[in-house]
């Protein structure tokens, strides 16, 4: 038989291509399939760091321009950026890391997102399929290592699984109680020379995963009846209301009922903090009025909150007079730490709408007696509020800056409208207490895991999503040094974050506990040799200021926020002996047992 001519081969090749075009099935490599799947999910930004196991994927990324990749300086930074991105936008954050050390470096960020129920999809490279289990180079069991800190995970064995796995990963991450999902992909699965038909599924259904779509209407009716008969009602809402987009409905329910409300550290901004009905944050460092109102209430409506030990103090002494209504999307959060009298499992937004509808009708029929009791309750609350527990003690004539004053000055300079990403420590609590948030998704902080090093990269994620907004990172001299390398990423991508470093030359929160519980023995909590931060950031091409006197604070901050296109680092020396108050007396205290200031207890 004569060999086929070249033109004949071309012709056949052409026919094949044509056939696929008719059926709209494209042949793509695993790497391309992954990137296309992410595009189909509407992903616009990926935070990541390349390495051997993800080189095929990075090559596929290079060939397109719909998704922007932000190259970080450490995988932990990438995860916190994706996390901050997700917290501020409500859209899932996406991370790429390589196998082995890339994957393990991502764990802290994954755990941080997991503890706060933040939607994220983490794609990690893995060793070749045939090498898995052989202790091959940069092999680590990512699915195993991340298992306790993910909502779910996938280990893919061939490229054809990619579209469905990605679809499921986004679906799982963003529905029900949200959380991070890991997709671990062996290098051979993304091999550029092996082509597979690509089709992205439009819908996903999983027989074993069906999060609740509405609350039980009988329970909701019962809850409203209880709320309308309450003598000393209290609303306590958490991060679930922010993540579940329930702020608007929470606000209208609270206003309809005229009840006092408090937010958890995670829930700040869900209800406008400058409103009269807001009693401030509750919990370990909560306000006197919020914690007292919790302790004395007779009906507690808890929404998207999980009765964390940092909120309840001793559980046995928690809300001794209250019947508890608990709304949450996660049935496992209900009656876990504190038994709920009326449990309602459902998405907060849907349940809140239903509560609003019924409450509006009910409030109109409220008796005079009930109205009188409510106003008596408010009188009692106003009494607690008059204690003015957040009043800052300033020594007359002193130039020393108090950390609380820094937050107040930042609030003033940003008109209360900035996105504030915080690190972990005293400065975090000061920020939570002294920067009242009137909108949800403005306060970005690691509540559940309490991860130092979260602030800067989280702020970068926010700034990536909102390039024109003012994004502030409130940090401490300890925390900032846990991910300071990301200053270089900021330079590369022109992220004009404003970093406010409350520099107390110590691990302040640790020091505070040592003062209070270890007779002031400051074991390893002094930070003696921090760099000259202002000079350090200048070497990255940013602007650095140092402030040491209260007289300069406002002026420097004004200049800082006027430099719209520059990253500015403000290193502010503050009183290193300051403590964060109020603070629960623990262990075995109730919510009303608090230290109000040094040596002063309730």
């Amino acid at each position, binding site marked *: 038989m004569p060999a086929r001519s070249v033109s004949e081969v071309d012709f056949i090749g052409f026919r094949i291509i044509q056939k696929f075009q008719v059926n709209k099935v494209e042949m793509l490599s695993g790497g391309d399939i992954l990137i296309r799947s992410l595009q189909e999910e509407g992903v616009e930004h990926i935070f990541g760091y390349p390495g051997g196991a993800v080189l095929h994927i990075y090559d596929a990324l290079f060939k397109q321009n719909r998704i922007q990749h932000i190259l970080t300086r450490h995988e932990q930074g990438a995860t916190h950026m994706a996390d901050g991105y997700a917290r501020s936008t409500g859209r899932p954050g996406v991370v790429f890391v390589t196998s082995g050390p890339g994957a393990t470096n991502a764990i802290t960020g994954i755990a941080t997102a997991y503890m706060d129920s933040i939607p994220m999809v983490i794609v990690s490279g893995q060793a070749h399929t045939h090498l898995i289990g052989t202790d091959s180079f940069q092999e680590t069991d990512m699915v195993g290592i991340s298992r*306790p800190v993910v*909502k779910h*995970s996938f280990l893919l064995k061939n490229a054809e699984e990619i579209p469905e796995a990605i679809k499921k990963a986004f679906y*799982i991450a963003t529905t029900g109680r949200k959380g991070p999902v890991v997709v671990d992909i062996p290098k051979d699965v993304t091999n550029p020379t092996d082509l597979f038909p690509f089709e992205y599924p439009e819908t996903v259904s999983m*027989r*074993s995963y069906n999060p609740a779509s509405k609350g039980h209407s009988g329970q909701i009716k019962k809850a409203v009846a209880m709320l309308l008969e309450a003598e000393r009602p209290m609303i306590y809402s958490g991060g679930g209301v922010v993540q579940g987009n329930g702020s608007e409905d929470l606000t209208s329910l609270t206003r309809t009922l005229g009840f006092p409300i408090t937010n958890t550290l995670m829930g700040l901004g869900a209800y406008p903090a400058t409103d009269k009905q807001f009693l401030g944050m509750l919990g370990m460092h909560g306000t006197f009025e919020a914690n007292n109102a919790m302790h004395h209430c007779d009906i507690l409506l808890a929404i998207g909150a999980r009765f964390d030990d940092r909120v309840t103090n001793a559980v046995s002494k928690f809300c001794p007079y209250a019947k508890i209504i608990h709304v949450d999307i996660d*049935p*496992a959060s209900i009656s876990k730490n504190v038994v709920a009298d009326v449990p309602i499992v459902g998405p907060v937004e849907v349940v809140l709408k239903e509560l609003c509808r019924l409450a509006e009708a009910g409030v109109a029929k409220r008796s005079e007696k009930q109205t009188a009791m409510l106003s008596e309750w408010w009188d009692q609350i106003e009494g607690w509020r008059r204690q003015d527990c957040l009043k800052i003690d300033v020594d007359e004539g002193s130039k020393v800056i108090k950390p609380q004053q820094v937050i107040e000055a930042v609030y003033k300079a940003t008109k209360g409208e900035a996105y504030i990403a915080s690190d972990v420590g005293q400065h975090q609590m000061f920020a939570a207490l002294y920067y009242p948030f009137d909108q949800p998704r403005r306060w970005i902080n690691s509540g559940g895991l309490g991860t130092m090093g979260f602030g800067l990269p989280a702020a970068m994620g926010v700034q990536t999503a909102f390039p024109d907004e003012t994004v502030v990172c409130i940090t401490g001299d300890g925390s900032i040094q846990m991910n300071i390398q990301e200053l270089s990423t900021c330079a590369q991508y022109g992220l004009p974050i404003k970093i406010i470093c409350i520099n107390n030359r110590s691990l302040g929160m640790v020091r505070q506990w040592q003062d209070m519980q270890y007779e002031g023995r400051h074991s390893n909590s002094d930070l003696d040799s921090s760099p000259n931060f202002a000079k350090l950031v200048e070497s990255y091409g940013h602007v650095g200021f140092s402030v040491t006197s209260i007289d300069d604070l406002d002026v420097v901050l004004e200049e800082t926020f006027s430099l719209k296109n520059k990253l500015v680092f403000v290193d502010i020396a503050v009183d290193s002996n300051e403590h964060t108050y109020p603070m629960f007396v623990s262990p075995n205290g109730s919510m009303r047992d608090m230290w109000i200031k040094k040596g002063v207890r309730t």
Partner: protein
Amino acid sequence: MRRRIISVLLENEAGALSRVVGLFAQRNYNIETLNVAPTDDETLSRLTLTTLATDEQVEQITKQLNKLIEVVKLANLTDGDHLERELMLIKLKATGPQRDEIKRTSDIFRAQVVDVTQNAYTIQLTGTSGKLDAFLRAMSDSTVLEMVRSGVSGLSRGEKVLSI
């Protein structure tokens, strides 16, 4: 603290079992026995585990298990009437007068001798865990060479079923 039997229908997928076991370790619940195998529908495994827990703990355990994506359905069999069985294979030293004694006790328990050598019997016994324990006590004078128990399997009595 009471003994509970929890029966779980699980997606028959790699890694699913490790999530169940991991959950118990991570949340400080105990597992007394555990067994798992595919069902007639090969996409599903059925897993049975026993644990010692208070009412509150078992509520948390079932809620947390239900949160695992691969858990399709589960039931706490000890909530109602149920059947439970466990299989034991036990190899006993059997020489001299011991041989008859072991055989007699086995008969009383309706156990079967399934393998014999000059010096050993291998005995198979099924029943509730309590029955297996009682057999072991009855054999306390004999020398156990080795033994294995399957862990508990169970079903609800009557027409109640755990299926999708």
